[in-house]
Every structure is written in C-alpha cells, then in structure tokens.
C-alpha cells in the first residue's frame, strides 16, 4: 500500500485493496477486523493495475466528495468515483491519454479551493483543472533540474496557502506554489535525506501543529542508524 487517504470531513479512511482491484472505505475509528462500510469493486469500475504495482494508491477529496484511483497500464490514467459509491459502479469520469503525460501509478492530490488536480507522474508535477476529463493536457507542469521535482508515493496540497508539498530528487521535501509552471524551484525545502539519512516516501500535514509527518522505509538506501522503517515529524510553520 503506497498511498491512501483520510477524510476528516466525513471521518472515513479510504484505502485500496491492491490485489483485489477494490477501494475500501472504513469508519475513521475502525479497529481490528472491522469490515469496510463501502467497497467499490467490479467490472464497471474499470479499476486495473499492473502485475508489479497492482493498484497501490487512492486519494479522497472530502470537499467535492470524490475518490481518485490511478489506473495502469491501459488505459493509463485516473478514474474518479463518487465518494459514496458502493459496489460495482462506473467512474464519474476518467482522465487519461497521451496528452495528459500520465505514466505508471502516480500519486494524486486535490486542491478544492483552487479546483485543481495535481499528479506527481515521473519527475513532474502535472496540474490539471480538478474536473479535467479525457485526453487533456495539464495546464501547468513543474519539472526540470532547477525545480528538483522528484517522485514520491504520496504528497499534499495546502490549499489555503496554495502550496504543493512534494518530494525532490535529492531526498528533500519541497514546497512549490500551485501557480508554478516550468522549471521552478521550491520556495522552501527541508533536506530530509541529508538531515536524517532517510528518503521520505509519504507526506501528511498537521496544520494545527504546523508540522509535516513523513513515512520513510529503506529503499535502496540504507539509513546509517540501521533501522529501515520510521515515521519522522518536522516543524514547518512557514508552509501553514
């Protein structure tokens, strides 16, 4: 499982069952062997992954009540479901095609304030209108050596500040502006790998405490302290 979502508006956990092509929605306080409240699964869903990645990521937008599922290999794109969907249901829309520049199983985030869909595909941050559908080009792409944009399993958007918090190629976590386009460097960065020896794979934001929380597991990089699994928290008031 490489990316899932917590819906703080409806108090729900949204997660993929990667090998069963299913989206599972649990109660936010679920514990033990509690079954999901809803399951999106079946032929109409068009959910498909690869032999390698399966279906490893899902994103929830609690403001617009939508769930985003990257799908691969053919068609390569993002399926969008209603948040309350249950059973064998068709997606509301599909964003995919060669012009989208979507590749593999990318991480997805939604900015409900500015109505943007952001996708970290390869070493690029693709920015679409939130309701983009079909074979649409992104309206902006952050990519290039100055940007330092890398690839991470999950990233975040601070919609109130208009900031994208994502992973950089040299193991840093950076904050880019949602209006950035091109080879634009981040406004701030925390050099996580340099500071800790870990390369972060997932990002969560805690606005109340002005902190970011990172998951990190040894991934071809052996941390010096010899412990391969960790969760690290940084104070980052600048982005809140």
């Amino acid at each position, binding site marked *: 499982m490489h990316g899932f979502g*917590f819906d703080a508006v409806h108090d729900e956990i949204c997660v993929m069952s990667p090998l069963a092509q*299913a989206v599972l929605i649990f109660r936010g306080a679920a514990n033990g062997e509690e079954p999901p409240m809803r399951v999106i699964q079946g032929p109409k869903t068009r959910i498909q992954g690869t032999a390698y990645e399966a279906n490893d990521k899902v994103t929830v937008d609690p403001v617009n009540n939508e769930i985003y599922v990257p799908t691969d290999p053919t068609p390569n794109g993002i399926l969008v479901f209603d948040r309350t969907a249950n059973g064998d249901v068709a997606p509301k829309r599909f964003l995919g095609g060669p012009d989208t520049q979507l590749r593999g199983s990318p991480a997805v985030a939604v900015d409900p304030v500015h109505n943007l869909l952001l996708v970290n595909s390869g070493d690029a941050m693709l920015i679409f209108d939130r309701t983009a559908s079909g074979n649409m080009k992104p309206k902006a792409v952050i990519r290039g050596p100055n940007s330092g944009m890398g690839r991470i399993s999950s990233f975040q958007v601070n919609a109130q500040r208009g900031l994208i918090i994502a992973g950089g190629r040299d193991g840093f976590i950076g904050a880019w502006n949602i209006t950035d386009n091109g080879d634009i460097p981040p406004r701030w960065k925390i050099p996580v790998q340099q500071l800790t020896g870990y390369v972060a794979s997932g990002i969560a934001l805690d606005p109340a405490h002005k902190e970011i929380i990172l998951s990190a597991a*040894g991934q071809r990089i*052996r941390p010096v302290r010899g412990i391969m699994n960790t969760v690290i928290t940084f104070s980052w008031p600048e982005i809140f």
Partner: protein
Amino acid sequence: MLSGMGLRLHGRTRTLVLGGGLAFAAALLGLSWVVHFHSRGSARLISIEEAPDLGDSCYRPASASLARRDSQRGLFAEFGEDTVHAQDASSTVSLARPPVRDILDTAPIYSSVGVDVERNEVFLQDSNTWSVRVFSRMDNAKPGAPPTEPRRVISGPKSDVQFNSCVYIDPANGDVYSVENDIGDSIVTFPHDATGDPEPKTKLKITHRGFAMMLDNENQELFLSVQYPPQVAVYRKGASGDEKPKRLIIGNKTRLSDSHGLAIDTRNKLLFVNNWGNISDWQVPGSGRFEPPSITVFALNADGNTAPLRVIQGPKTQLDWPGAMSVDPGSGDLYVANDMGQSLIVFHGKDEGDAAPARVVKGARTGLSYPTGVFVDAVHKEVWASNLGNSTATVYPLMANGDVAPLRIIRSAEENKASLKFGKTQALVYDPIREQILVPN
C-alpha cells in the same frame, strides 16, 4: 531608504511598504510599507501596496503575499511585460532543522524462522534492520534476563538482505536461503557459517512479491510462492542470476489467490500453498474479488494451470492471514503460522473443505504475537514460531495444543515488548480528529 507618507503612482496614492531589512528599519520608525522588486536584473520598484497594521511585528501574513502577486500581475500588464514569477535555485530557502519527533522500533521485527537441526542453530529473519540473526537452538531468555545475544548476524549492503520474508536452511548442507519480498526481488544464499556483510553465494532474480520457499532435495528443486500474480515458481536447485523457473503453477484453475506460505511433503509428494483470497487478473479491468483464505494442495510435480487436488477453506479452519507453513514429515501434519489468528494451527495432511484444525496453539501463555514464521524440527520433536509482534521466537513440543507455555524463548528486546510491527513504512495519513498517525504495514 525610502520614507514618506505616500507615493503617487498612476494617479493613485499608496503607502509604500518595505520588505526585509528595510522593513525592520521602517518598523522602528513606525512606518509600514512593502516594496516589491523585479527579480530580473537590477532591483527596481514594481509595485506598492498598503500593509495591514501589524504593530511592531515584521511578520507579513499570507494575504499580503497574495495581494503582492495580484499587484505584480496588474503592474506588469500596465507596463506590457509578461507576468514573472521567477525563482532561481538560490531563492529556495533550505530549512536545515532537525526533526521534532520520530517513531521507530529499534528491535528486530521477525518475519520468518528457519532451523539447522544438525548444527542446532535457529535463524531469524528481521525485516526492520535488514538482517538474519543466528542463535543457539537451546537459547532461552528467562524472565528478567537481558535480550538473547545472537551468535552471528548477516547484514549489510553486500549481503543484499532487505525486506526479506523467508529464511530457509537447506537440510542437506546448512546453506542459508533468504527471500526478498519487495524491491530486491531475489533469493540470496549464504554458507551456514556466514556472518557480517558477506557477498551471497548465489543470487537468483525472482518475480516481484516472492514470499516463501522450500527445497525438494530429492528432485533438486526450489519452490517459491508468489503473492501476485499468484503462482508457484519451481526452479532448479542452485539456480542463479536470471535463470528462469522450470515450471510455473499459475492460472485461474489453480485457485491461488494472494499466495503466502508454502510447504512440501516429499514423502506423499504434495505441495501446500496458503492463500489470503485477494484475487484479480491484472490484465482485465474490474476483475477483482475477495475469497475466503484457503490452503490449496497440489501434486508435487504440478505444472501450469492445474486445479488443486483439494482445498482447505471455510470458517472452521480459523485461517486468518496465514503465513509460513511447515510439514512434519513423519505424520504429514501441516503446521501454519496464523498471523492475525495469533495462533499456530495444525491440519492433517489429508484434510479438505471446511476442516477444523486438529490442534491449535493459542493463548496468553503461549507468547505468540502475530506469528508469521513456523518451522517443524522433526528431529527434536519441536515446532518453532517467529513472532512479528514481540521480537521473539518461541518453541513448543511438536504435539502442543491449547494455551501452552513455550519450552524456550529467544527474545531480542525487553520482556513484554510490543513491537511497532512496521513491515515497510511506505505510506501514512494524519487523522486530525483523533490526532493520530495511521501507518499501513
């Protein structure tokens, strides 16, 4: 330094606000102005705006930043220039501050157990520190004693031990096999006395998500279970590099589904594979479904899209995320590390359908905590479990049943340790309602 009460620009009066050091000086003088400089070439005035009254604070709230951008665009439009939001690499502010907290487990998290019955050694696979730890079979951490010291530890970049899910000891020569379940996608072997960071004797490239392995020394074959696409790959024993399997058990008739533990009964020529029931055909969209967990039984020489000889499946089986399996060659009994069931469950080799286990080792006295590894030591009539939940390995009489205390405990942490059970911390979310971090294993 600019000063003054206002500045006429394009017929409008605005208050000039100074940024940076100028703002500080201005604040001392009771002034509050922002000046925005074009970032190309030399500095020049590009816009002015009234700043909110912040008293003596030099902090500029976000709204002022957004206002700055709007005024920039407006001003550029008036001057006929393109909107610029240029930040060169030198403008990135790098915050080299240490973390405020971290969550990690410093103890081993044991995913598998193998035993060298000839040399009386126990091998434990640790996915938290990427190591194989070797202990004496007779080690026993009594209450109050410090953690058990390993005799040897295999770990390091040359060893290529990573998120390994299975350690297996070749009964013929004591060679150590270890299966990497995630990004390594390999089976490495070491001589029985390997220690430190050795180069593997052999390294076999396997398909992604290999989970458990076993050797059939009679036929010189290596069996490997693969979670997804679900299959059993059978290699030549000694295969290395890119050598392909001799045969594959794969296809919809096999009823393999998210396959995990694997065991061989060489006397009765049987192959056992347990399955978690998460299944789909990755080439067919929307083909996913959930099935109950099961144990599928095949002929040892099964090949291709072959139906199992029988299937153990149903609520009476108590199967709950079954992990490793091991056969008692004398009786044919099948021992299963029943992870979420917090138990070792034992089936007769001929069981079929919704069969209740013949024996269940479970309860507070057992010390079992999310057991994912199991090994039958038929020589000494014992069965071992490796426990993901408390950094221990525990051993019981082979015919143990019920809530029985272990004969011995290998313990690699403090007593009553509750492990974080981090398998691989690839993702997380934050629950602001409960102020909790959710980390999938």
